[in-house]
């Protein structure tokens, strides 16, 4: 190819890339849901693939192995969701009933006044403000329940989304090796070995990241469970600790924001259960710091769990699985958050890891281009 032809070739390639990006920008709103479903299905597949492969070697049937693994996951998922939903519903209805009692409202007002007056520098509330507080709490919980109901209505979308992810995951798990081979067969001979190298490195990166994250999330869940159990021994009266611990572990997958999300249900349930208890209201953390309803104890416990996770568990289990500089991680999280919100933050680090692998392979390719 002459230099002039090469320049023309490059020009048309550039025009083609620009047109493709422009077209993608316009069709993105129509395909974004599908892309998200596929991304989730791929992640789900990456997590479950080693299990299906191992089971296939034992029972010699890919389809049956996929059925068993997916069935097990579904049973666990529905067991968790139904258990948590029924527990939370029971908790909320109990609390609403208690809140409706008149004497309880008076007690609540009294406790509120004492709480406020215990805070140094807080203004005294007069009797005029008391009914407003009760009203505020009742309005808050009724609106909270309404929000839950509206969330249930939009839950149909979630169910559809989840069902699609599960169906795609099943297909991907069952046909993964065939899809992979089909993908590899599309690579031109010239780039065959390098292409396979990139695919293998991306798989390795994803697998390492997901395994590390899964182990770190499990550790956070176990530590949170133990922490809440210890708090209960000191009279915190926190229920649903099994579910709270799992939520804390799962929310830990979203860096920086997740750990905060994990402690919210624990704090809410502690307030719900202990409201009305004078002992809980006047509780002192380490016998020094006022911690009404064990709120600061819970926050402190979760901070300790996070510190153990960040400084001990994650460096050991996740290590340098992605090998990204903390600054790049922050930028990736920021961009992910802007583009897709919390979901974007969840995918930001693995995506940045994949981009890093591709960039490394491009550098490698450029270095050996003359030998391909």
């Amino acid at each position, binding site marked *: 190819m002459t230099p002039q032809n090469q320049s023309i070739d490059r020009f048309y390639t550039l025009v083609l890339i620009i047109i493709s990006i422009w077209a993608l920008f316009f069709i993105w709103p129509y395909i974004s849901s599908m892309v998200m479903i596929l991304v989730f299905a791929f992640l789900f597949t990456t997590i479950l693939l080693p299990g299906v492969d191992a089971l296939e070697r034992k029972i010699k049937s890919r389809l049956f192995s996929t059925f068993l693994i997916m069935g097990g996951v579904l049973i666990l998922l529905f067991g968790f969701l139904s258990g948590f939903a029924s527990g939370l519903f029971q908790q909320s209805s109990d609390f609403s009933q208690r809140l409706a009692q008149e004497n309880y409202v008076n007690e609540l007002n009294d406790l509120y006044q004492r709480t406020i007056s215990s805070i140094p520098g807080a203004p005294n509330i007069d009797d005029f403000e008391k009914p407003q507080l009760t009203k505020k709490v009742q309005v808050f919980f009724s609106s909270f329940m309404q929000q839950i109901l509206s969330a249930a209505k939009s839950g149909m979308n979630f169910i559809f989304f989840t069902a699609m992810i599960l169906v795609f995951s099943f297909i991907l798990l069952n046909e993964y090796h065939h899809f992979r081979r089909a993908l590899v*067969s599309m690579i031109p001979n*010239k780039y*065959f*070995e390098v292409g*396979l*190298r990139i695919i293998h490195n991306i798989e390795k990166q994803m697998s390492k990241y997901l395994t590390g994250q899964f182990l770190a999330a499990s550790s956070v869940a176990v530590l949170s469970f133990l922490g809440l159990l210890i708090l209960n021994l000191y009279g915190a009266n926190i229920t649903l600790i099994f579910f709270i611990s799992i939520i804390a572990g799962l929310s830990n997958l979203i860096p920086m924001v997740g750990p905060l999300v994990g402690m919210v249900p624990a704090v809410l349930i502690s307030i719900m259960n202990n409201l009305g208890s004078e002992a809980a209201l006047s509780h002192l953390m380490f016998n020094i710091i006022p911690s009404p309803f064990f709120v600061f104890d819970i926050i402190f416990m979760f901070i300790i769990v996070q510190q153990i996770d960040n400084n001990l568990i994650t460096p050991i289990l996740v290590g340098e699985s992605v090998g990204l500089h903390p600054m790049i991680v922050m930028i990736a999280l920021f961009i992910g958050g802007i583009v897709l919100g919390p979901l974007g933050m969840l995918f930001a680090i693995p995506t940045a890891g994949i981009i890093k692998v591709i960039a490394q392979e491009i550098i490698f390719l450029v270095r*050996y281009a003359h*030998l*391909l």
Partner: protein
Amino acid sequence: MKALWENLFKNWNRQESLTKTVLKQIPVFHELSDRQIHEIENLCHKRRYKQGETVFKRLAPGEGMFIILSGAIEIFTEDNNDNKKTLAILNNGEFFGELSLLDSDTRSATAIATEDSDLLAFLRPDLQSFSKRSPQTGNKILFNLAKVMAARLRKTSEQVSKNSAELV
């Protein structure tokens, strides 16, 4: 009824695939069971090379070995003055590039298809992940590979001593 019967037992009289037959002949896969050979077959990638097409060039990073299903491959080196020295011309059932299964070093020679060829690529990343999943089979393959290397080393040593004897 006959159709149902044939459908149920369609695999009974099925011929073994060419890939499987060729794989069984390769010393690297000796003493592997049918099931293990089937697993290896699933790991391999079939590639078609046209006459004159380069499979890999000398000094390019190597990722694995190639097995010839059909066709012919020329292995050669070139010195700084572009003088070509053919090392071997390989045909059906033969293999090359097996050193790259062990390390990620560069290729020691160039391989070019001298006619339209169907090759089977068995790459290092696939062997590594396979060895993690099936350590026993992985060990068997690596042991066979070591045997192939030992045989080649012995042959080279004999050649070197023969050449030195001739020089003396």
